[in-house]
């Protein structure tokens, strides 16, 4: 005579499950042993909210296989590999439900599967797989790189970003679709090189680069929405008083009226008043675009 346990899912559905299968879940086990629940329809064990009937079916399949003692490790592994071939959403439901039932081995198995789906993919790919809505503003994604720009590639990249920022400001009103497309490429590069400053919004600390007048001038320009050189001097003094350390590699700027964050050390500043003749500038631009493309194809693998 097989004995059964009665389980009730959050939607009120009550089902009968073989005892040894259900008892594989620690949470159910505890309910049966310590609270004597589940012995009849009226005393069905109320399962946590996250366990829907569909997921419960999957979990019970897992339990049914693994609770049999005589299986070899190879058999179990093969079963697990087949079992875990589910789509992204099902996996998420599964990990959530297994967690609430305290079924550790299944939580680990499912977490590994999800981790494999995330690991190595670009942000776009991950968003697509898991249907994640992209709610970061374009500006937030375009954070310049906060690292020492010894690497010429990084320098070029920063130059590209500066251009893009300028373009963004220029097109803010027109909302050009083209900009968005360009951004898509940028994002995959951002993926790895942008870091979130944990105290970002309120950051006040300013660290100056080793006295490079050019940079100071650039900083001032960026602080204002428009490249207004008259403002240079007052902000310059402000900058001085706020400087805290002389870290040559990293600069932070207080985020004031602009939503753009200009963090990063760029040794050769860009397009505002380079003093380069237009032809050279154009060539530089092309070079930078081309470089970014190449970088993308390498990095967004």
């Amino acid at each position, binding site marked *: 005579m097989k004995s059964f346990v009665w389980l009730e899912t959050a939607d009120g559905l009550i089902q009968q499950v073989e005892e040894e299968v259900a008892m594989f879940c620690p949470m159910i086990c505890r309910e049966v042993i310590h609270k004597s629940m589940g012995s009849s329809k009226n005393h069905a064990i109320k399962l946590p909210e996250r366990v829907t009937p569909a997921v419960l079916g999957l979990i019970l399949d897992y339990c049914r296989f693994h609770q049999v003692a005589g299986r070899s490790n190879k058999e179990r592994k093969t079963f697990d590999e087949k079992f875990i071939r589910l789509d992204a959403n099902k996996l998420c439901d599964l990990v959530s439900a297994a*967690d609430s039932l305290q079924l550790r081995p299944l939580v680990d198995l499912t977490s590994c599967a999800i981790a494999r789906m995330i690991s190595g993919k670009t942000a776009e790919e991950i968003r697509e797989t898991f249907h994640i809505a992209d709610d970061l503003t374009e500006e937030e994604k375009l954070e310049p790189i*906060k690292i020492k720009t010894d690497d010429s590639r990084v320098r070029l990249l920063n130059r590209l970003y500066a251009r893009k920022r300028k373009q963004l400001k220029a097109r803010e009103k027109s909302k050009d679709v083209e900009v968005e497309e360009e951004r898509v490429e940028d994002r995959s590069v951002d993926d790895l090189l942008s870091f979130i400053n944990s105290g970002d919004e309120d950051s006040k600390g300013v660290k100056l680069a080793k006295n490079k007048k050019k940079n100071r001038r650039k900083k001032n320009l960026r602080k204002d929405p428009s490249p207004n050189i008259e403002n240079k001097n007052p902000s310059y003094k402000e900058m001085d008083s706020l400087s805290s350390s002389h870290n040559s590699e990293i600069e932070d700027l207080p985020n004031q009226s602009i939503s753009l964050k200009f963090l990063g050390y760029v040794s050769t500043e860009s397009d505002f008043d380079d003093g380069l003749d237009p032809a050279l500038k154009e060539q530089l631009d092309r070079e930078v675009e081309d470089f970014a493309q190449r970088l993308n194809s390498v990095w967004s693998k």
Partner: protein
Amino acid sequence: MSSIGENGDDRLSGLPEDTISHILSLMPTKYAVRTSILSKRWRYSWMFVTNLDFDDIHPFHSKIVLSKFVDRVMENCKSPQLRSLRLHFSSKRVKRASISSWIDKAVRLNVSELDIQVLIFKLPLSLFTCKTLTKLRIDDGNLNSRVWECPCPVNLPCLKTLDIAVHDNPFVNAFGLIRGCPILESLSLEVSIDKEEERYYIFNNIPTLKRLKLILERVFFSVTKQVVLNLPNLEYLFVGDSLGSVFVVEDLPSLVEASVSSYHMCLEFLKGISGVKSLTIDTFTFIPALPIFPNIKHLRFTSFWYSGRVLQFLESCPELKHLCIEELTGEHWIEPNLVPACMLTTLTTIKISSCKGREPEIEFLEYMLRNAKVLRAVTISWEIYQIEEKRLCAKVLELPRASRYCDIHFIGSRYHSASGYLDFEIHV
């Protein structure tokens, strides 16, 4: 710009924070950090990972970029208890001071497992007295870099697994570290002995040790060492030695499994490990007489072996059940007068993992099949051209068998197709 995902809703982002950080802890840290730009909700989740795993492959272009990345992650790591830190830098020479500071930071975050495989580094002092460390894996990169210097006595109260390669002053450094681990259970020690004065490596006073793996590398003009083993609770022993050291077994009563890969093996040592249930041997010089191994159930020969030598072993293992051979070689062998006892009573499986189908191998198979009375399964993995397979399989299948219930399985040659390994089985 905020829109619901096209094909479905986003269940992943709705998972509890604990689950998310658990998932993010299962991948290399660079990918976990990358999730920060998925959406607002994902911005800071990576900071709570419990496993930090850094490598220097793609897309880091320079050691400086890599260094800064790791700095940033370590700074922002908000997990109160780090489960593991792994640094695998095989090509980028990150600054010693940086590596030291990262390890130090991990120690402060109560790290449990540490895995350092980098080119140049220095260990911070705090590592040697870390109260939470349970597993430590370090390779000192075979440079005389004074990595192990520790002025204070070592104290690692929770360390159970130690996996180190010590090339710099191994006697002092390795043993100094081992002495500081009161509950050590598993030790893997790789040393290369250069101009060391010490002649004796004595492993004793480690009552908790259950597994020992010793690899002694050859350096020219080194003095022959004596390795003394006195470990009453040791269950598993692996010895890999290209130096011709003399291994002396003083006391290994609990030994269950041994694996020997040393060209110079002596009778005394084999006597000392004769109580094992499972033995793996790599090829070694001929010993005229073997001790009896009364408990052996599993016998495995790696590398290549002469059939005659295999049979010599079979004669010494009266209770043998499972025999595994990698490769058989040699010319004609002389059939022994008496069939080894185990073949008549206990031998049930034979596996040959790299059979080339040559005459000596077929002769050996023929002998085994003809005489093994309780054989159940023979598995042969071919290393031959595909055209040969059919003929050889047929040949083996025709050989007379002493045991009625004996199955023969063949695992196909890898020369079969460009796409890889063909696996077919003919059951008879």
